[in-house]
């Protein structure tokens, strides 16, 4: 009487015996024995590294410094000068009034020969293009294509007119477009300012649509900055495109145009400035900058000075380490330095 009947007994004994005893496949990786190099911070390596850095840095620093030194730059702060004497006490009223004459002229001397192209920048200080409320107040889709004209997300409070039709281009950035203008002349001869190609070509091609025309722009009660010609598509509105490349810092320069001829040294240039833009309510500064350019950019001594300083510091450190090494030679890897190898009474 056996319930097993005729079925064959299972043969599990041997097979299930110690499945885990299966020996793993060993390799150099599993044994953590991959070939490895172990660089040590030996005096030779460290000192030569510092010397090498020093030797590299000083020439680069000199080159940068000379490049920056060769750039000729004229900076003229005009935000105070361009307010007539009688309005100095209330600059804000002056700038906000539509009746005042905001033209002002000045002349300055070219200190050195300036090779063409001479870049004309306007510089704003204490102007926070990177402010959280401001920097996001734009809509890239709307700028790019007519199809997205109605896209005004993020643009508040300059998104739509009171009756609900979209403002193109919408947002605070466009609305606050810089609107001072400059014109230059030497002894009554006008200097041409080339305002073409001041914006990035990529922006003109891909970020600002050639079929997008300004609409309802600066029509509200509050006028921000410049107005736009409604018959010119955004891709041609280069001042706008430049302005909308927001600056990361509260002090910044933006390209206004180029003078496509050399300016000779000691040439007297007279500038006529339309001083329209309000920086007075927040004590911002405005400057006009004429500058040539070099391989490293504009006049900026920082990199050069930093390289020279760091280079010399490295050389100094290297020398200090050499001196230290000579004064206090230490055998590397001396086991007698191991605390457990030292006599307890030794110290």
């Amino acid at each position, binding site marked *: 009487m056996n319930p097993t009947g005729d079925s064959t007994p299972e043969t599990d004994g041997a097979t299930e015996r110690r499945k885990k005893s299966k020996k793993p496949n060993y390799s150099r990786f599993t044994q953590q024995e991959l070939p490895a190099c172990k660089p040590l911070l030996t005096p030779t390596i460290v000192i030569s590294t510092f010397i090498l850095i020093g030797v590299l840095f000083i020439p680069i620093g000199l080159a940068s410094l000379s490049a920056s030194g060769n750039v000729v730059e004229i900076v003229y702060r005009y935000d105070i000068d361009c307010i007539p004497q009688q309005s100095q006490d209330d600059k804000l009223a002056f700038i906000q009034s539509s009746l005042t004459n905001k033209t002002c002229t000045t002349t300055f001397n070219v200190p050195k020969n300036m090779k063409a192209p001479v870049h004309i920048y306007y510089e704003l200080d204490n102007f926070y293009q990177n402010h959280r409320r401001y920097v996001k107040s734009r809509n890239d889709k709307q700028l790019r294509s007519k199809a997205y004209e109605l896209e005004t997300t993020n643009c508040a409070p300059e998104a739509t007119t009171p009756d609900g039709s979209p403002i193109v281009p919408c947002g605070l950035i466009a609305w606050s477009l810089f609107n001072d203008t400059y014109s230059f002349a030497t002894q009554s001869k006008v200097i041409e300012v080339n305002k073409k190609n001041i914006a990035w070509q990529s922006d003109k091609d891909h970020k600002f649509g050639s079929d997008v025309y300004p609409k309802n722009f600066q029509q509200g009660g509050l006028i921000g900055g410049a107005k736009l010609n409604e018959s010119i598509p955004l891709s041609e509105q280069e001042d706008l495109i430049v302005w909308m490349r927001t600056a990361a810092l509260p002090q910044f320069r933006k390209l206004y145009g180029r003078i496509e001829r050399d300016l000779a040294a000691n040439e007297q240039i007279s500038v006529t400035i339309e001083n329209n833009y309000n920086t007075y309510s927040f004590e911002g500064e405005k400057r006009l900058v004429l500058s040539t350019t070099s391989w490293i950019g504009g006049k900026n001594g920082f990199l050069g000075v930093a390289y020279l300083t760091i280079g010399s510091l490295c050389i100094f450190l290297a020398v200090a380490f050499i001196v230290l090494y000579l004064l206090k030679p230490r055998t590397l*890897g001396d086991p007698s330095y191991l605390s457990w190898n030292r006599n307890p009474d030794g110290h």
Partner: protein
Amino acid sequence: MMKRFVYINDDSSQNLYCDNRISNRKYTILNFLPKNLWEQFRRFMNQYFLLIACLQLWSLITPVNPASTWGPLIIIFAVSATKEAWDDYNRYLSDKQANEKEVWVVKDGIRKHIKAQDIHVGNIVWLRENDEVPCDLVLIGTSEPQGICYVETAALDGETDLKTRVLPSSCIGLTPEQLHKIKGVIECPNPDKDIRRFDSNMRLFPPFIDNDLCPLTIDNTLLQSCYLRNTEWACGVAVYTGNETKLGMSRGVPEPKLTAVDAMIDKLTGAIFLFQIVVVIVLGFAGNIWKDTEARKQWYAQYPEDGPWYELLVIPLRFELLCSIMIPISLKVSLDLVKSIYAKFIDWDEEMYDHETMTAPHAANTAISEDLGQVEYILTDKTGTLTENKMSFRRCCINGTFYGNESGDALKDVELLNAVINNVPDVIRFLTIMTICNTVVPVRSMSGNILYKAQSQDEDALVNAAARLHMVLISKNGNSLEINFNGKLIHYEILDTLEFTSERKRMSVVVKDSEDGKILLLSKGADEAILPLSYAGQQIRPFVDAVDQYAQLGLRTLCLGWRELKDDEYKDWSQAFKEARSTLVNREWKLDEVCQRLEHDLEVIGVTAVEDQLQDGVPETIETLRKAGINFWMLTGDKQKTAIQIALLCNFISSEPRGQLLFINGKTEDEVLRSLERVLLTMKITSSEPKDLAFVVDGWALEIILKQYRSVFTELAILSRTAICCRVTPSQKAQLVELLKSCDYRTLAIGDGGNDVRMIQNADIGVGISGREGLQAARAADYSIGKFRFLKRLILVHGRYSYNRTAFLSQYSFYKSLLICFIQIFFSFFSGVSGTSLFNSISLMAYNVFYTSVPVLTVVLDKDLTEKTVMQNPQILFYCQAGRLLNPSTFAGWFGRSLYHALVVFLITVHAYADEKSEMEQLSMVALSGCIWLQAFVVTIEMNSFTIFHHLAIWGNLLCFYGLNLMISAIPSAGLYTIMFRLCRQPSYWITLFLITVVGMGPVLALKYFRYTYRSSAINILQQAERSRVATFSIRDLDSQLKSIEKDVGSLASRNKFKSSVYEPLITDSPTATRRAVGPSAFDFLQPAQSRDDQNAGLLEIVCMLTE
């Protein structure tokens, strides 16, 4: 209701309990998502990230695209959810397989084939040989005429020997036909998980026998997952089914263990969180003030005059979001990843593969490898852990005559052999007890040889020895037992077995000699459990001497005794015993009591001595680990003398005069207290001498101490590097672990048997030796290894590397998160404290998930010292134990570094990209590139060894950064369009990055070099020594030096303790200091912690200090 009544073969009552459907699944398809999410969100970090992600949905305050947090968050969640789902699916499959297995069950008097899941309580289940038991059964019938069957319980308790299961007395002799119709009731407790107990009764209904209540024990059961072996068929009544079986009940999720490193990381995370809150509040305030004073004047921002009610909250919340990246979202994932790789490295380690038993090491717990490197106390079992647990009978003493003293092997002692041949009665009696008084099962193998299946190695040795002395146990069938002595067959009937328990420390059997009908009580047990039971007037002196003598030699001793029972006496007692056996409550205690009533007035007849050899490499392992500053406690159930002997053999303690043993003993509380205080005093006085002190305590004294004098003992425990606790029970072992843990020590418990399981589970790290006593310990343990000697490698190599690697990885993760966060904070000072993000969403997300996570993962291959060096200089482990690579001060270093690097990146970028270049996208990309370059060099300078993977990951990552950004720069709609192309063409970009790298890394390199050369740590020295070893120092030099000095380490420690003020700055690095920081008082680590007055702190000071 505390009991359940199981009606056998009664269909009407079977729906009371669940059916036999097994379910190990955690989830169902419907509840998977909510339940899994709920589980994941119970973690604080996840809650935090979810909150951040939700806040980011509010576009007014979010500085970046919500995707930058949602993306990684969803990935992290998806990864762990997928893993859970996969595990659960596998569980479902295996459940299904088990549930749908066909089994034979009696229905309506006929045997039918049904699925295992349809078994109900009360059903009669038939099993064939080699069948797996589908649920918990009470045995009611077997094919064997003696009413026994054999089971293999490996799946249940890991023990591989066959166990005998017996029919309840009332079921013996039933035919299969009767079994089909059997009716009755089993009264049993509600389901529990105790696989050693089943205290219940059975009453069969007429016509089957009488109304007698038949007691049932665990021996009458077939438990789920066991296999029926060597038995043609067996059948039983289902009493527990489905998830209510013993196995099902004992399934449970073990509490996850938290490593010291994890605790430290949690603390640091908490500290960073606080820091973040402070930053948010300060910047939030500043932002609101700036807004009200300055921003309102800035007409182009068009701040409305009256904002909404929440206006004051907007800027703080923006900063909260901006700063949320301070806590690296990738940390948890990276840590989990590297930890599982550490565990794999352990599994893969060829040098820890035990060729003898063919077992590979296994890390069951993948999360605690770092703790291995921080172990301070090792609590080790003796038998099977330090020793082979391969017993061989060496000597014996029969009635005052010593055998085997000359040759060291009693089996070769001519005198003994002669005595056997001459039928010396005492010797015969002695052999009879050796042969009968045990639980060994003789199994006849195919070839006709008799093999013994024994649960205890001692019994195995005794039975085998008796067989060599011509007293061969031939068979044991149910109650009858057969012995072949010198060719003569002797029959005995086993009347009762008084089982061994760790409390009683002895076992006895009551047998009836079939020839003369005499009833004999045969006992065997520890000397203190047998000798006091000798009859009044017996000289036990010779036996005490024998036991002493054997223990001195490190042999395990057992005393044998016997007594003839009168029929009446036995009958009375037998009744009481039966009653005790059928009680449901307190059965064990009652049985004890009843047994004691019989076990008295024994004639002690002799002492056996069994040798247990030390495992290979035990002394070396212990010596190395002690050099590494790890303290050893030996917890054994063995005798004091044996324990001390083994301890001496394996370098555990030193012999006089280098070492000294301090005994704590006594029988009463007063005695114990006096002894304890004396030992403590001695310990304090001698702690300044170069002497190895160890205290020895036995189970009895320990019981009193743990109850009454815990605090004094704790003080002693802190002072003592070595201790021997003998005669301790499993629960005492666990209590000792608890005691050391309560002193904030990292403990590792290692053992091999079932009696070590509790200790292993309680300790911070449990290591099991897959030994001869089964796999029970190995299963409960976090790590299982084949031999004790592998412990050295497990701790010194795997533990140490894991700790070093995790220490770097975690701190680096914070460093890189803080770096980018500090830059954001600096930028906010240049953006009107308005909460603008300098970096765009894609960059931020990729920075955390990609650019900075990948290179650092190569840390799993980093080795600061070669394995060989570490093994030769185990003292280096002090660095890990003390937590010197991850503690508030090292973290402060990384914090400072991130602050410095953020300053460097930001200031250089802002100055180099000023004026006409200060376009937002460009400037942010320059800053980001700076961060990426710096982090690549930070990883480079902090790595110790470079494999091909390192180069691939670090430099490949840098290339990937450019590749990826160039690709994005080619997409016209991206904000980054053309940016990277423009930058790469500008010489000033490269010059700026070069500057950032050199200014950022120069001081780091200089400082590191200076420390490396002039303030070298022991690690540095060894690194240098590895290089220059060949030139100046041979390894042997180093070794001999170490050896000669090693003995002074202890004294060094205590001496230096008094100088601790000189080394003030390092005290914070002592293990105590780390501990304090981990302790309950939150974030108090900024205060210098006080050094605990123990030698550990002192040791660390000298070891880690290097003065001129």
